[in-house]
């Protein structure tokens, strides 16, 4: 990431996780947002990082327990009578 606020970009990377997770205090968060608005590189990194996480979350939500796997699981625990979802 090369541009005139080089040091601040490094600082940005250091705080990226906490920023994305909303764990920063208001003052630092505001500073970062101000930086993002003036630094297109950091803006791209933040956006693509958020999107990356969303993609894995949505891929995860689509992963369902197949009904036959559920049945075999309950059977392996001798709980066949309790299978409630198909």
């Amino acid at each position, binding site marked *: 990431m090369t541009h005139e606020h080089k040091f601040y970009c490094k600082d940005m990377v250091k705080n990226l*996780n906490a920023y994305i997770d909303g764990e920063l205090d208001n003052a630092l968060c505001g500073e970062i947002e101000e930086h993002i608005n003036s630094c297109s*590189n950091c803006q*791209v*990194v933040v*956006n693509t990082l958020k999107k*990356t996480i969303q993609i894995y979350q949505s891929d995860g939500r689509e992963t369902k327990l197949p009904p036959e796997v559920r049945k*075999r699981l309950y059977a392996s625990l001798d709980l066949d009578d309790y299978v409630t979802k198909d």
Partner: protein
Amino acid sequence: MNKENPTQIDLEALKRKDKTAFAQVLDQNSEKIYRLALKMVGNVQDAEDILQETFIKAFNNIHKFEGRSKVSTWLYRIAVNESLMVLRKRKDHVTEIDAEIEKDDGDVIPRQIIDWCCLPEKELMSSEARIHIKKAINHLSEANRATFLLRDVEGLSTRETAETLDISESAVKVRLMRARMQLREALTGFYSERLTRENA
């Protein structure tokens, strides 16, 4: 079942090996454990074995569960350990969860600055993209993968992830950062090609 809060697990009933309580634990957690196992090991047969083994071990050892953490956290912990056992059988080197974190932080420096967020959803989640999404997560070290899956996919807090993996919260943060940045780089490599195609 706890009558005041039907979603709350009755620990005493579990310890009595009450089948209704066991079934309630299964209902609430089997999909989560299957998903974690599948994403950890990448194949359905192994994921099913891990799923069964996790609950068999949990129910056989229910007397050891002290109730200081959530039942789900305890199950996740067993499932991660089972997943690591499967992976150890497959390959020579598996990064242990509590392994010292490498000092080199080259993995967290963004290298590719290309904005692919504008790609349409059908491109982002195409069948070709899904293969790449899976490949990218399989390339993470086991420790970073487990951290990312628990924190970002299963939605555990930093503290819960640390408890599950028996590592410090700061280690969770470092591992999570590395995992997220490596995945971002991998997806950027893939989607930027799609972007070039779109714009051609």
